[in-house]
């Protein structure tokens, strides 16, 4: 044991590369975001201290409130949908033995691809002369303007993200299901419990911690949606998909209003933090 105390230098040396990277590219920018939000920093690098002006501007900005609503509505559609799809497919994979590995692979496949690819393929799927309208057109229906109609565009985008990402939560939930002892379910069967009763009384309570984990991860993911919006809608139509992150990008790299864009970033961080703290608190209480 003694050699560990004797030699503090090598420990530091091994950490040094990571330490330097973190100080410069994670910790400094995190503090920098807070600092920049108090300035009117612009593309030329000129700035002066403006106090809380950016925050006052944010509270008065209709686009901010709109983007907050867009983000929350998107999360409210995406999170339940993806958890339900992941849970449903995990339950099916847990029941079916026939070609299970193949089905699991097929369901998981989109997860290894990029959101940009998902956006490009689904943009075509949703188009007027795209796949869905082509198919329903043969049945004499449509065409439906999935990406041009303000009321349809957020559900349409949520479907793309669910398709791309549910495989992850499905695998986590499947692992959770596998850890439930088979004897519990067998015993319930013996007692005459039906499938729904077994799910409601045994599977669901035992799966709760896993479900909570998935719920938190997917909620954080919902707040970070950007790539598909950039590819498919550009924040439109009429800002119907103008999310918080799209706002950061728009103010930063279209208007080059860095001080104000940094303010959006700080607020995004605060919102994600508050949402995950509330969830954690709420879920912890439900868990004990």
């Amino acid at each position, binding site marked *: 044991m003694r050699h560990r*105390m004797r030699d503090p230098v090598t420990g530091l040396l091994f950490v040094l590369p990571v330490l330097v990277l973190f100080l410069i590219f994670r910790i400094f920018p995190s503090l920098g975001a807070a600092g920049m939000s108090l300035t009117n920093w612009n593309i030329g690098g000129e700035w002066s201290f403006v106090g809380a002006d950016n925050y006052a501007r944010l509270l008065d900005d209709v686009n901010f409130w709109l983007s907050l609503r867009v983000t929350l509505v998107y999360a409210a559609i995406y999170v339940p949908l993806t958890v339900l799809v992941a849970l449903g497919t995990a339950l099916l994979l847990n029941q079916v033995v*026939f070609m299970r590995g193949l089905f699991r692979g097929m369901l998981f496949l989109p997860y290894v*691809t990029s959101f940009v690819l998902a956006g490009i393929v689904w943009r075509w799927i949703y188009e007027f002369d795209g*796949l869905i309208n082509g198919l329903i057109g043969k049945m004499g229906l449509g065409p439906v303007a999935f990406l041009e109609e303000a009321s349809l565009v957020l559900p349409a985008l949520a479907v793309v993200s669910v398709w791309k990402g549910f495989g992850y939560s499905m695998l986590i939930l499947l692992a959770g299901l596998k850890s439930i002892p088979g004897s519990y379910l067998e*015993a319930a069967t013996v007692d005459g419990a039906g499938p729904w009763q077994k799910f409601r009384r045994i599977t669901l309570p035992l799966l709760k911690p896993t479900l909570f984990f998935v719920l938190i991860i997917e909620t954080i993911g919902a707040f970070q949606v950007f790539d598909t919006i950039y590819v498919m809608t550009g924040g439109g139509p009429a800002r119907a998909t103008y999310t918080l992150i799209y706002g950061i990008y728009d103010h930063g790299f279209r208007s080059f209003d860095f001080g104000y864009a940094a303010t959006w970033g*700080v607020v995004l961080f605060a919102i994600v933090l508050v949402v995950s703290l509330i969830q954690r608190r709420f879920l912890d209480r439900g868990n004990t």
Partner: protein
Amino acid sequence: MTITASRPLTRDRAAGRPRRRRARWPLAALLAVLSLLTVAPFLAMFVVALSPAGQPTLPAQWPDSLTLDNLSKVLSASGFVKWTVNSLLYSVVSVVVILLTASMAGYAFAKKRFPGRDAMFWTFLATMMVPFQATLIPTFVLVNSLEGVDTFWGLIVPTLANSQAVFLMRQFIMGLPDELFDAAKVDGASELRVYLTIVVPLTKPIMATLGVFVFLWHWNDFLWPLVVGQSDATRTLTVGLTTLRTEEMQLSMLMASATISVIPCLLVFFLLQRYLVNSIAMTGFK
């Protein structure tokens, strides 16, 4: 976590057996339909990518014949090849550097004592709470002031600070017995030797897993490459794909480009699927 049962549970296996034999084929059929629906967008993409240019294809009708023309045409476009090379560089360099730095730091955090170790580790963990997008602007301004915009180092270096990787390596190395390291020390092995002959070989499985994930994260990454790679010189494939528009090129060419971009992901998927699946289930790695 309690199981609530209205009646006491018994363990009469023999009586339970007939019920378990109930046919599961409707569930299997449902699963097959869902699986096919999930891969259908890929199949449609492949069909369009392989359709002869200018001829009718999906969704109007199945193409009369298939051809590799579009794929070879895409691969002979200089911009596209450059983007692919850039994406490979971005991904491979990141994998190598992150595996090296994260395993070194993970080893030190797990098995060494040095001043400030725990404070440092918790600070690393705390940075996981800050979404990258929230620090996008200051990170860009920092890289810009160091004249790193539209350079390779500007693209790659800021993404090398990966707290998930450090965390995973530390957790794994903590599980290795202390005696291994003590014995090596007693034998007079240098620190570098301990790292190379004990840490590296014993962490191979977790390093392989981490490497696959880091590769996929970088190959599929978009927002940072979008803002920092502003010309073809440093533009990655994901960013390049978004500059292709169907107004200017045929759909079959666009889908051919998309198809080529997904090949490395499919390779990783087919070669290492079991690995990916197990590591997500075990570590919750995303």
